[in-house]
């Protein structure tokens, strides 16, 4: 029951959050200099043509009128029209969800698994050469600019060695995995260190905790101690960080997708900001905000499952 109430509460909170975010992005986007219409009809178009097209999109109205119209349409399920592609926003967003979903979910798996593995190794072999090596990895990983990592990966593994495709997103499941190896690696290199460092210190704390020492003294097998006592307790503090990492990875799509020419939400987002495609910016902001809230909610629910103290 309590869990249900938490979920309901969180979903209710979504409403003011979305209203606030949409209002802010609406005002910010329109306050930024630049006219989407000029960019799409081209530099040679006359002022009259530009005015005529602006009118078609209702861009000649005062901004608060535009916002009210937008909200009214939104409530009826109409997300507005893309100025740059002259069609409904929701269609464009939906058509690009899949690649981003693959990218983010795969990227997260390739972040969580190595982070967990390396953290366990590092913690159990504290201060050994392998621990030092892992430390070097995450220090360097934290310092490397991710777009640079992505470019180097493409240059070496795709262009020179020809092991993986440099860009794109395949048709079949197998093709997609193949195409996403490099982008996933780029995400993993950027995100694993963050999680890894946190997990390692969490594990170290627990490994020397009193309850673990007493479990050991009882002669319990190490494997049992690890799975039953060390892991659940040390994962807890990292769970919230995982939520943050997940949201970052989503935002990361904006950097990664253009480099690998993946036709996902990130590329659309970048393109719509540069093109001042107001209603696409608006729609994507809402989608990203909703996903962020949902991820936070998922983390809270996971915490509930792992930690019996939370109620």
């Amino acid at each position: 029951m309590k869990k249900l109430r938490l979920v309901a509460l969180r979903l209710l909170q979504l409403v003011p959050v979305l209203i606030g975010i949409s209002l802010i992005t609406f005002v910010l986007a329109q306050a930024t200099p630049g006219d989407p219409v000029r960019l799409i009809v081209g530099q040679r178009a006359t002022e009259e043509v530009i005015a005529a097209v602006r009118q078609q999109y209702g861009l000649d109205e005062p901004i608060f009128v535009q916002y009210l119209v937008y909200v009214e349409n939104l409530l009826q399920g109409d997300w507005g029209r893309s100025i740059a592609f002259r069609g409904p926003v929701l269609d464009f967003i939906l058509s690009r969800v899949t690649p981003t979903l693959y990218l983010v979910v795969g990227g997260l798996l390739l972040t969580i698994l190595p982070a967990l593995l390396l953290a366990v190794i590092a913690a159990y072999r504290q201060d050994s050469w392998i621990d030092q090596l892992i430390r070097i990895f995450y220090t360097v990983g934290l310092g490397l600019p991710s777009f640079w990592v992505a470019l180097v990966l493409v240059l070496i593994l795709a262009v020179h060695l020809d092991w993986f495709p440099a860009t794109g997103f395949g048709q079949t499941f197998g093709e997609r995995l193949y195409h996403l190896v490099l982008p996933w690696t780029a995400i993993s290199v950027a995100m694993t260190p963050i999680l890894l460092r946190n997990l390692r210190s969490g594990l170290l704390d627990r490994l020397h905790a009193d309850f673990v020492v007493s479990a050991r003294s009882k002669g319990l097998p190490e494997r049992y101690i690890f799975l039953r006592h060390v892991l659940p307790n040390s994962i807890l503090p990292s769970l919230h960080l995982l939520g943050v990492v997940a949201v970052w990875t989503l935002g990361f799509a904006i950097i990664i997708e253009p480099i690998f020419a993946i036709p996902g939400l990130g590329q659309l987002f970048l393109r719509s900001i540069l093109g001042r495609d107001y209603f696409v910016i608006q729609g994507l902001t809402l989608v990203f905000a909703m996903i962020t809230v949902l991820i936070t909610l998922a983390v809270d629910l996971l915490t509930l499952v792992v930690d019996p103290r939370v109620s």
Partner: protein
Amino acid sequence: MLGLKGLKRVWLIAAVGLVATGILGRTAAVTEAAAGEEVRLRLVTPYPVSTLDPIKSVAAGDIEILGQIYSRLLRRDVNFELQPALAESWEASDDGLTWTFRLREAKFSDGSPITADDVVFSYLRLRDQEDSAYGGAFQVIKDVVALDERTARFTLKHSAAPFLGSTEMFNAGIVPKKVVEALGDEEFARKPVTSGPFMVEEWRPSDRVILLRNPHYWREGRPNIDVIEWIEVPDENTRVSMLQAGEADVAREIPWVAVDQFKDSEEIIAPLNQSSVITTILLNHKDSLIQDLRVRKALAMAIDREGITKVVTFGYATPANSPLPSSLDYYYAELDPIPYDPEKAKQLIEEAGATGAKIEFMAGTGGSVWDQATQLIQDQLRTIGLDPYINPVDTATWWDKVTTADYQATVSWWYNETPDPDTAVRWALCGACGNSSFYTYYNNDEINKLTEEGLRETDPQKREELYFRIQEIALEEVANIPIWYKPYRNAMRSYVKGLFMNPAIQWTFEDARVEG
């Protein structure tokens, strides 16, 4: 120690899985290529497609694809000469006011015939519709009527030398009247019925357009390409990687450094075809500092165009001498540009009392080229006693500032969609032609007058004089500071033959083929 072994096993499985998917994915790709006999080309371009309706846009991404899907009355062949297209013949009255075009038997991509009614419909919407993006050149048309199924007659308001050439422009493509009327503009723009060498299979906005060979295209045996994937890839390095990795066959706008890298390559060629692009420094003539002719002259003298061109474009571009693109008719090749003379420039700045004056250079973040050029210019202007600083802005902001005269100087470029200089002069040098000389607000009454004379004059000899005079005046008054003429920075795999881009930014896909 616990579980480390088990975890190692997981790692191993993951690694094996990864490699296996790699191999599977690769095999799939290879078999597909071997089994299909269709000729498929993948073009990567930074320029987004925003519409497939020929009249709705004059942006580069649209111009380039519109030319592939709509036939016009005339066309330009691989030598850039005008040739019959949908019109198999035409004649003009002696006064040049009446033009009669005889159409050949041709079909739209849905198999329906292209008639004079479609021509009339296409030209009227091009001229009259309020969202026709670039209808200026067609306002000279007084009337256009269908005399019969296959004859269309145009009457002009006054004689106009560029008229015949303008029937080849990308936005004068012929659209099917019935289909446009039935679907409405918006629906038509998404999935059009076309008249050109290619038709549209699918358009995924902000991703790609898939073009198929139009089986009803009027030119026998053309095109040889079955499918073109027209892919939007904003990042220039990504476009180069795709070309190198064999994931693209043709790439538009690659960096100069990549052009240089490919010069000895056997697999990738960068043909460097002549373009109508001119790179120039726009000066805001409404600005109190720039208004002073001495200051403008000094700016022009302070800039080492040869040096900048060499450094930024690796010497692949040519320093510009005239304010008009070098590919245009009546381009004044012998015109002497203002010489590089920093000493004299410094003196002029002193005379104008502008020593130490701040001058803002706005830099559009459209690519590394502009940053680099702007920085070099900044250094050179310092040596003549000015205090230049750079204001980087994104493209959308750039346009906002330029069109509202909220800038002092900026490096920019433009091109012309036809070889006729009329539209070029109206765009860049005429102060009374709607966009205030590319928003430099340069306004010279004589040029404005000569522009109108040049449009009406039909004697080539006399036209040449008029346009030479325009170029002289604009250069002398430093309307703007032309820097270089650049060839196209396009590259392709060497198995693509016969493909290039003409100065009117049109690809020759219909004459291209794939070998080997």
